């Protein structure tokens, strides 16, 4: 049992770490939750790639198609179609863009330029799109540690956490019902809230604790990459070379992996006698996000090197797999999504509780704390949701060749996201407490608008999408409609609350929740 002074110290830590980092944490959690379905979001944002399930693909035919697309390219990589991405994806040197090929005809599909879920939402989750000195990664890493601290301190401050878990009183005062919901969601998804930040941190162990590999490898980064991540290189021969059958190499890889299939093929030093092919093993059937790879001599098809993680490395890959959720298990994927949403609501209710429990006192003393935190919290919570919807709407509204202020269509989608987000912060600062409800109403309108625009611009309303097998599109539309309904109800309820303000409960300031009765 914790002593009361220590419990108060934990409560203070929980409160203030949550208030200071809650906004960034929400952004990371929100984008992480969406990233569970980043490939499905890609299908929604890239209508030409909404294909039926892909037939088995001949790698040799794919290689011929890539050679025709980029004759003379010194290297290229292609990712084979999967249940979530039914296209052949090609990456060519000198371009960040991913080309999508129809797996039946190898014709290039040309979605309007967009970063989509995998190019914008997923990287936002782990690096906030701040590249400078890896600052975004470090901020998210700090948030990951903060999330662990918040979760553990949240558990430790409760005297009777199980009783609190079953205590949800929606008809009580706002502060009480917010705190009940915060606690219940925190306990319900407790393993998720512990495992996700920890596994997210472990993925980037080499960045956050570079001293470990620098010490073990005497600073030899190339050796570290080779032995931990299985990277292989050899110098050019300077003589012309050929490419033998990739399908035969894939069959050999499958035999060595005892049925495991390659999902990614990379050709290096193309056209040179030293050219080689890298095949990476698919991880759709395992939790572990393995780094198994086989390198073949391109001319002869002979195996040059095979990489498999050693036991501790395999543990790290298993932990990474838990976080990346790349395995094809739809029920688990939806559970991840729901747990992620529970985390978002938990963070938001924590912030709301802090605001509501201090509002009266801050107003009486003339402090600006509540007003400032409220603006930041509203912009961080409902603001980023509205911004995400603006990103989707911009994707459906902007013409393919759109450009403005020297920015292409892809960048204009980001302008919509950041512009709306900034606008939501300004709106929150201007409208104060009323902003929550107004932004919820805006979210309701934007989410329904996104569904309607998808219907208008592609003809895919949810039922049609479902009937032609585009389940990812139908599911995204369904989730958007549900979000719209929930936010509309929340906006109505918030209006009632703002109209009839209740006396604030003095629950915060380090007071242990369960001791309040």
């Amino acid at each position, binding site marked *: 049992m914790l002593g009361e002074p220590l419990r108060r110290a934990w409560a203070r830590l929980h409160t203030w770490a949550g208030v200071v980092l809650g906004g960034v944490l929400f952004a990371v959690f929100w984008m992480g939750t969406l990233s569970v379905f980043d490939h499905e979001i890609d299908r929604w944002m890239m209508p030409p790639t909404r294909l039926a399930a892909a037939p088995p693909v001949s790698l040799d035919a794919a290689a011929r198609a890539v050679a025709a697309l980029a004759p003379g390219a010194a290297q290229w990589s292609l990712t084979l179609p999967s249940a979530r991405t039914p296209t052949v994806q090609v990456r060519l040197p000198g371009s960040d863009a991913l080309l999508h090929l129809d797996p039946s005809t190898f014709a290039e599909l040309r979605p309007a330029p967009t970063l989509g879920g995998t190019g914008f939402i997923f990287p936002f989750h782990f690096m906030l799109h701040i590249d400078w000195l890896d600052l975004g990664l470090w901020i998210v890493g700090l948030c990951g540690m903060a999330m662990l601290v918040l979760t553990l301190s949240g558990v430790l401050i409760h005297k009777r956490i199980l009783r609190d878990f079953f205590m949800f009183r929606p008809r009580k005062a706002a502060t009480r019902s917010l705190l009940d919901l915060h606690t219940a969601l925190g306990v319900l998804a407790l393993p998720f809230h512990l495992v996700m930040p920890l596994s997210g941190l472990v993925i980037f162990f080499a960045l956050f604790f570079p001293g470990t*590999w620098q010490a*073990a490898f005497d600073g030899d980064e190339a050796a570290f990459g080779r032995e*931990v991540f299985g990277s292989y290189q050899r110098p050019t021969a300077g003589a012309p070379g050929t490419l033998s059958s990739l399908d035969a190499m894939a069959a050999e890889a499958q035999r060595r992996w005892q049925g495991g299939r390659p999902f990614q093929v990379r050709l290096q030093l193309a056209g040179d006698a030293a050219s080689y092919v890298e095949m990476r093993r698919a991880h759709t059937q395992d939790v572990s996000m393995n780094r198994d790879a086989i390198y073949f001599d391109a001319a002869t098809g002979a195996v040059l090197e095979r990489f498999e993680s050693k036991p501790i490395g395999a543990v790290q890959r298993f932990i990474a797999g838990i976080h990346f959720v790349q395995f094809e298990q739809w029920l688990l994927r939806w559970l991840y999504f729901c747990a992620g949403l529970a985390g978002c609501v938990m963070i938001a209710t924590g912030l709301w509780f802090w605001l509501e429990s201090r509002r009266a006192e801050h107003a009486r003393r003339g402090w600006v704390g509540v007003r400032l935190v409220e603006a930041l919290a509203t912009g961080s919570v409902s603001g980023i949701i509205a911004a995400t919807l603006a990103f989707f709407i911009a994707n459906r509204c902007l013409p393919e060749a759109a450009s403005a202020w020297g920015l292409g269509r892809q960048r204009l989608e980001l302008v919509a996201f950041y512009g709306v987000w900034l606008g939501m912060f300004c709106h929150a600062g201007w409208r104060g407490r009323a902003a929550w409800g107004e932004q919820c109403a805006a979210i309701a309108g934007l989410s329904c608008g996104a569904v309607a625009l998808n219907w208008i611009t592609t003809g895919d309303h949810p039922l049609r999408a479902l009937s032609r097998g585009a389940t990812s599109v139908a599911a995204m539309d369904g989730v958007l409609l549900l979000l719209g309904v929930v936010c509309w109800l929340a906006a109505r309820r918030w209006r009632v609350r703002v109209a009839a303000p209740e006396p604030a409960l003095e629950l915060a300031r380090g007071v242990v929740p369960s001791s309040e009765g």
Partner: protein
Amino acid sequence: MRALRVILRVTLAVGGGYAAAAVWSAALALGLRGSVARAEAAVLAGMLAFLFFLLLLLWLLTTPRLGRAGLLVVGLVLGGAGLSRVLSAGAWPSLAALTRGA
């Protein structure tokens, strides 16, 4: 004064805790090198570093005796850095050698 103490505490917890975790994980990676492959040593030390950092964070952010905690963190950082230096110079037997000796 209270704000200064809060800033000091957070700086000590985040900065000091990170530094201590970094030097001790590097020392662990060096110490494990003789027992397991160096890739395994680096990965294991890297993963354990987060747990060590987390424990330090939780303790430093809540301990009532900030001065004593600060001294301990300085000691941990210096001790870890010293041990890393000794291990990297090869002047100290690896954990494997120690185990064999036992």
